[in-house]
Structure formats: structure tokens, C-alpha cells
């Protein structure tokens, strides 16, 4: 009876009902996601013995993961590849999202989105394998280019290296990048654009000062949704990467399934995730600073300079994170680079009085 009334009391409050309802998926995620993630974090501090894990707390795995030349080069490469993939995918995706949102009739929008998402849902493994066919020595690209007579011998730099990994991943994650941008663009009130043009802005300036800022949440979402999973992709580097295209996931798989070294594999996995978090943190900090700067410059600065600043900013930050990933002495240089850029922005803001 008392228990019955206890449940009844919980159900009466809105918070209680919500918690009760979310409990099954919530507990599932805690038991099978949060707890396992905690366990690899724990494992990464343990020592690998033969056939068993020795319960000694150690930082050896991390020092190995961050100093071993092989591991380091794989991590730096993974970071560089997923940054390149993110940049390419989002830049290519934006015009498509813009086209579907602004230039396609409302009744046909769903059809376009459906066409864009279909390739994403069809056998990932086979799609990746077919890129090998497209990019290979006797592949579609090479035989096509040879046929037209543009090249005299097959190109070899497009398969079994970093380039092929970037191309294949950019293809695989395309729909992921398009959808969030499309959703953000759809939410934009079209009368704002008319207002912009009524007030004498050109179409291009309206795009730059109204559409682009309002689409930013979607762009950020698509950057995250592409950047985070690509850094841990296993299939693409394994199939089209060749020896010089291996990434973190291949290293993790090697440690877990071949070498049976769980602590080392865990340390690499955790390090990879830390790299992701670090990159996102710098990107976020930068975006906030840059947003403030942009608002200040918006009235007084030619847009070319603003765009140039954006590029500089991205280059400084991503370059900095890459340097940090390559560790000492690069890490010091990386931190200095990012800090100095942030300070430069701050100084500019102070002098312009735009921080208020």
C-alpha cells in the first residue's frame, strides 16, 4: 500500500512522470554506454600482462601512446583527415542545402531530401569498396581520363593513401552535413530577406548578413556530426587507405583484436576522443570570440576582410590543434599559436570597443 502511494506520488508530478518514462532508455544508456565508456577510461590506466590485466595504476599507456612515433603519426593523420573531410563536406553541402531550401518548390523538397539520403542508407562496406574501383589503377577515373587523353599514364596518387580516404569519407558523410544546414535554412523567416533587400542591401550582402548568420547553428551541427564520427572511421582507411592511410580506429582494432592489449587500445581510444574534445573546445572558444569581432566589424569592415579573418582564424586554430597533437615541441608552438591569435582578436576588440 505504502509503495503504491509512493509510485502514485511520483506519477503525480510532471518531473516524476517524465523520469519514470525516460527510465528504460535512460538506464539502458547508462548501463551499456556510460558504464562501458567509464570502463575503458579505467582500463587505459591499467597494465597489460599476458592473458590478464594487472590492476596497477599506471600512466605508461598514455606516455607510450603520445611518444611512440607510429601512434603519434596515426593520430595526427586522423585529425588532419577528419578536419579535411569536415571542411570539404560542409563546404560542398551548404550550396545543396541552400538550393533545396530556397530554390526548390515546397512540394518537391521531400523528394530531394529523400534522393540525397538514399545513398547514405545503402551498404556502407560495398560503397567504400566501389570507391576503390572508381579510384584504382585500372579504375573508372583513370580509364576515363586515359580515354579522353588528358593523362598518359594512370594516376597513382588517388588510391591507397590519405587522398582516397578523404574522398571516400566526404562521400559517405555528405547527407549528414546537408540535413542540419537544411533544417536551419528552413527556419529562416523569408520576410527578413525581403526586409534586407528593401533596406538597400544587395542580394549577396543580404545572404552574408542575414542568411549566413541565421544558418550558423545548422553549420555548427553539421561540422560536429561529420567531424566526430569520421575521426573514428575504421572501414574506409582499412579498405582504401593502404599502409599510409591508416587511422585511429585501425590502431584500436589492432590493439584489441590482434595484439590483445586492452589497456593500450583503451588509452589510444581515450586519447583520440580527447583530441576530438580539444579540437571542438578550441573551435567553440574561437567561434565566440570571432562572433563578437564579426558583429563589431559588421558595419565598418569590408566583407572581404571579414572572410579573410575567418579563414585565418580557422587556420590558426586547426593548425594549432594539429601541432598540439604532434606533441612536444610542436605542442608548445600550437598552444602559442592559438593563444596569440585569441589575444590578437581580443586586442582588436578592445581597441574597437566592440566588446560591450
Amino acid at each position, binding site marked *: 500500500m505504502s509503495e503504491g502511494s509512493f509510485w502514485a506520488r511520483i506519477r503525480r508530478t510532471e518531473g516524476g512522470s517524465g523520469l519514470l518514462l525516460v527510465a528504460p532508455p535512460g538506464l539502458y544508456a547508462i548501463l551499456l554506454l556510460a558504464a562501458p565508456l567509464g570502463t575503458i577510461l579505467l582500463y587505459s590506466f591499467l597494465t597489460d600482462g599476458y592473458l590478464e590485466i594487472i590492476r596497477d595504476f599506471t600512466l605508461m599507456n598514455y606516455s607510450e601512446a603520445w611518444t611512440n612515433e607510429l601512434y603519434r603519426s596515426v593520430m595526427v593523420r586522423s585529425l588532419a583527415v577528419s578536419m579535411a573531410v569536415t571542411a570539404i563536406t560542409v563546404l560542398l553541402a551548404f550550396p545543396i542545402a541552400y538550393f533545396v531550401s530556397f530554390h526548390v518548390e515546397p512540394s518537391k523538397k521531400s523528394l530531394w531530401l529523400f534522393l540525397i*539520403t538514399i545513398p547514405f542508407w545503402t551498404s556502407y562496406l560495398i560503397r567504400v569498396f566501389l570507391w576503390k574501383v572508381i579510384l584504382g589503377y585500372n579504375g573508372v577515373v583513370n580509364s576515363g581520363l586515359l580515354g579522353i587523353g588528358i593523362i598518359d599514364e594512370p594516376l597513382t596518387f588517388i588510391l591507397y593513401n590519405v587522398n582516397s580516404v578523404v574522398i571516400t569519407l566526404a562521400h559517405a558523410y555528405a547527407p549528414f552535413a546537408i540535413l542540419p544546414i537544411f533544417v536551419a535554412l528552413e527556419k529562416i523567416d523569408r520576410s527578413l530577406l525581403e526586409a534586407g533587400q528593401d533596406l538597400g542591401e544587395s542580394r549577396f550582402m543580404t545572404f552574408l548578413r542575414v542568411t549566413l548568420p541565421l544558418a550558423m547553428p545548422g553549420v555548427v551541427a553539421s561540422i560536429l556530426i561529420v567531424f566526430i*564520427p569520421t575521426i573514428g572511421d575504421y572501414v574506409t582507411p582499412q579498405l582504401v587507405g593502404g599502409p599510409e592511410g591508416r587511422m585511429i580506429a585501425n590502431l584500436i582494432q589492432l590493439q584489441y583484436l590482434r595484439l590483445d592489449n586492452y589497456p593500450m587500445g583503451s588509452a589510444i581510444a581515450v586519447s583520440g576522443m580527447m583530441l576530438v574534445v580539444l579540437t571542438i573546445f578550441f573551435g567553440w572558444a574561437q567561434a565566440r570570440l570571432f562572433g563578437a569581432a564579426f558583429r563589431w566589424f559588421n558595419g565598418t569592415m569590408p566583407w572581404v576582410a571579414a572572410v579573410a579573418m575567418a579563414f585565418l582564424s580557422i587556420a590558426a586554430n586547426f593548425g594549432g590543434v594539429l601541432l598540439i597533437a604532434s606533441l612536444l615541441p610542436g605542442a608548445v608552438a600550437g598552444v602559442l599559436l592559438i593563444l596569440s591569435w585569441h589575444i590578437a582578436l581580443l586586442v582588436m576588440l578592445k581597441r574597437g570597443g566592440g566588446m560591450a
Partner: protein
Amino acid sequence: MKVNGFKLYAFCYLIFLYAPIILLPMFAFNDATVIAFPLTGFSTRWFEEMATQPTLHLAVKNSLFIAVTSAVLSTILGIFAARASTRYRFPFKAGIMGLIMLPLVLPEIIVAVSLLVVLLGLGVPLSLMTVILGHVLICTPFTIAILSSAFQSLDQSLEEAAYDLGETPASTFRLIILPLVMPGIISSLLISFTISLDEFIIAFFLAGTQPTLPVYIFSQFRFPQAVPVIMALGTILVCLSIVLLSIAEYFRRRGIARSGGKDTGGFL
């Protein structure tokens, strides 16, 4: 003028997106063991050869079992989460929902190794069941995304009317809410089935010695003479998923139309 430029770009982009899928049937029906141009002639022998491979049949059976179970379980979990997040405010909502949605962005290999470590640590033998545990985890965020839009467009006054007419919360859910979100549920079942059927990494780590379809396909890539059969298999899989996705899209749209919402398009 401007629109035409965009349209041209969009068509080029679609060609880029579809390039691998267009090639697939070409090689599946090509009468040669080597996957390269020029094509040598029409043949259906790769499709016939599929019938002679017992491992493939086992892999299909395993994958269907995993996909159906994962789809049902993740859709049930998705209903709970989508209903809770669209209807109620509760403590730690952002944190809990964030954790449940995390597999959407978390690299699958991280999910796979963390589950592997825990399962082996607990002494749970690897089997199809352990794959299902992982697949439910990664399918649930997708089901929530689909089901949330179904629940969101629900008119709350319908529910209140049912209470006023003397229905209990459970019977209201069964009689009023469930029929309205049914199209969303079907769409979510189909999408999670498709995801699970195609998932490789988690199955690769957690299936033990049992083959699933993607694990089988991956193992066959090592043998060049086995690849044409895989192309034939891939053609069938692509057709199957296009059919499933079309049905899912149909139900998703009908669901939104039925509960009076506005179609924002797309699955995410």
C-alpha cells in the same frame, strides 16, 4: 540564371552521391571475375552462385534475426524517450537525453570496444545477443529522432479530452496516442532495421564466431575471385533498402500529415 547554376551544381552533386551505386549493378551483371572496365558481357551467374554458399545463408539468417530484434527493442526504447522528451519537463533532461543520443555522433568503434571490454570482463560469451545489445544502442537515437517529430505534432487537447471522458493514462495512450503515432513507429522500425542490417564495426567486434552479413562481406573482400558475388549481393541489398526506405518515408509523411504537423523533410 542563378537558379540554373545551382541546379547544375545539385545535379553534379547527385551524380557524385550516386556514382558507387550506379556502378554496382554494372559489375553484378558483368560476365568477368575482375571488377574493372571495359565490361565483357551480360551474365546472371554471380546471382546464381549466391545459392551455393552456405556461410552466406547463415550470415543472412543471423543478420535478419539481429536486425528484427534490434529494430523492435530500439523502437520501444525510442517511444519511451520520445514521449518523455516531447511531453514532460523533468530533472537532468538535457543530460539524460544527451547520453541517449550520444551514439549518433560517437564513433562506432568506441561503442564496440567499450562494450567488448565490459562483456568480456563480466564473462558474457560473445554471440548474436551481444551484437543486438550494441545495435539497440546505436539505433535508439535514430528512432527517437523520427518518433519525436511524430509525438511533437500531437495535439495535447486530444489527450486531455480522453482524460475528461474518463480514460486512464494507459488506455489514452493505447486508444488515442498510439494510433496517431503509428506511422512514425513503422517508419522507425524500418529505419532501425536498415541501420542494423548494414552495421559492421559492432558486429565485427561483438559477434564472436558468428558471421553477420556485413562481416561476411568484409571477409570476402580479401579474395578477388569472391568479389563479383558480393557485387550481386550488394545489388540486392541496395534494392531492398531503397524499397524499405521508400515505405519508411511514406509512413513518416503520412504520420505527420495525420497528426496535422508541417513536413520539415528528412529523417534527422
